[in-house]
């Protein structure tokens, strides 16, 4: 069974048709990269795949998924490690993979944009979900962060996971299907 199957998806936002007739299948080890100009519906497509938006037409079928978008969804007052542990049983693999170990004891509120992005990605890495939904995962990351992200994505695919990412920045995803919007 595919980890993600989109069939004839159409997306309406604010009465405007962003795209229609979109089909996509992601198998184990697969990846797809959504590209397009601002406002083309990249984030909406990721949210459709996550089930947070309903498509105007078509069906979405997916395996268990983890999502990283522009919202970190971490409790500002808690320490990063505890805040991540609310979502995933053991956040250590994610903290390790994204190089956050020195920050695990810091409260979330003092983290920078890039560090928050790393934290959101760490949750995805530690989630154990087979399907990763990444909306602009490289936004705000420095070159070390981007390298770690790409390494984590490669390891996830090698382990039989799939990645559905939207990005306007170049992102190393070998052999990824390209979904161009707009």
């Amino acid at each position, binding site marked *: 069974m595919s980890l993600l199957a989109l069939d004839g998806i159409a997306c309406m936002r604010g009465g405007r048709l962003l795209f229609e007739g979109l089909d996509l299948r992601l198998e184990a080890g697969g990846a797809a990269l959504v590209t397009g100009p601002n406002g083309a519906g990249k984030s909406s497509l990721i949210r459709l795949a996550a*089930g947070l938006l309903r498509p105007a037409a078509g069906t979405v079928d997916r395996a268990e998924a983890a999502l990283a*978008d522009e*919202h970190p969804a971490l409790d500002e*007052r*808690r320490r990063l490690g505890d805040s991540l542990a*609310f979502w995933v049983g053991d956040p250590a693999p994610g903290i390790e993979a994204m190089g956050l170990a020195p920050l695990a004891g810091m409260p979330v509120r003092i983290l920078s944009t890039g560090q928050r992005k790393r934290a959101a990605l760490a949750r995805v890495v530690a989630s154990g979900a087979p399907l990763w939904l990444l909306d602009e995962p490289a936004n705000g990351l420095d070159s070390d962060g981007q390298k770690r992200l790409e390494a984590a994505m490669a390891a996830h695919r090698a382990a039989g996971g799939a990645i559905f990412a939207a990005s306007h920045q170049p992102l190393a995803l070998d052999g990824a299907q390209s979904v161009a919007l707009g």
Partner: protein
Amino acid sequence: MTGLVLRELRLAAAGGAAFLPLVFFLLVATLFPFAVGPDGPLLARTGGGALWMAALLAALLPVDRLIEPDRAAGVLDQLALRGMSEEMVALAKLAGHWLSFGPPLMLAAIPAAALMKLPADVLLRLELGLLIGTPGLAALTLGVAALTAGLRRGGALAGLLMLPLAVPLLIFGAGYLERGGGSGALQWLGAISLLLVAGAPFVAGAAIRASRD
């Protein structure tokens, strides 16, 4: 589910957010005797109703911290992604919110009743009424918080939405103080509170889903 209830309690305790309604409630109880004068019998006759009004207004205070911060931070999205229905999230939030609101308010009612010179039997009826009525108040707060989440200046709108809906709780809560058990006021209070508690998770759940579009 339990984790979510605990998280709600932790958020309420963090930064003293849970104490705000409490302090407000006590403040009203302190100010009321200044306003109507130190006439003991008059205070005892009107004080209970004033405390119910204070409880109602205090219930309005947490309205902007219940749903909106979690919506803006993406917490509600992450919960949905884990397959938790919005209604379950709302129910967990309701339980957590009531625990941080109802029992502390009942405790604060004891010194407040002393300030109002309420007799012991009236205080007992006030406590019983609050025990039954505060879940309804908490449910109203949650429902209105979900309906106004994401709106600019939602707090002002929340007051306009919530206070009229809270009128039945006020009528029967205060009515029970005056007329006691034979009047059926307590049963009405319970019925309305139950209705609000049963309905709020569905209203809040639908509002959370609608706020994503």
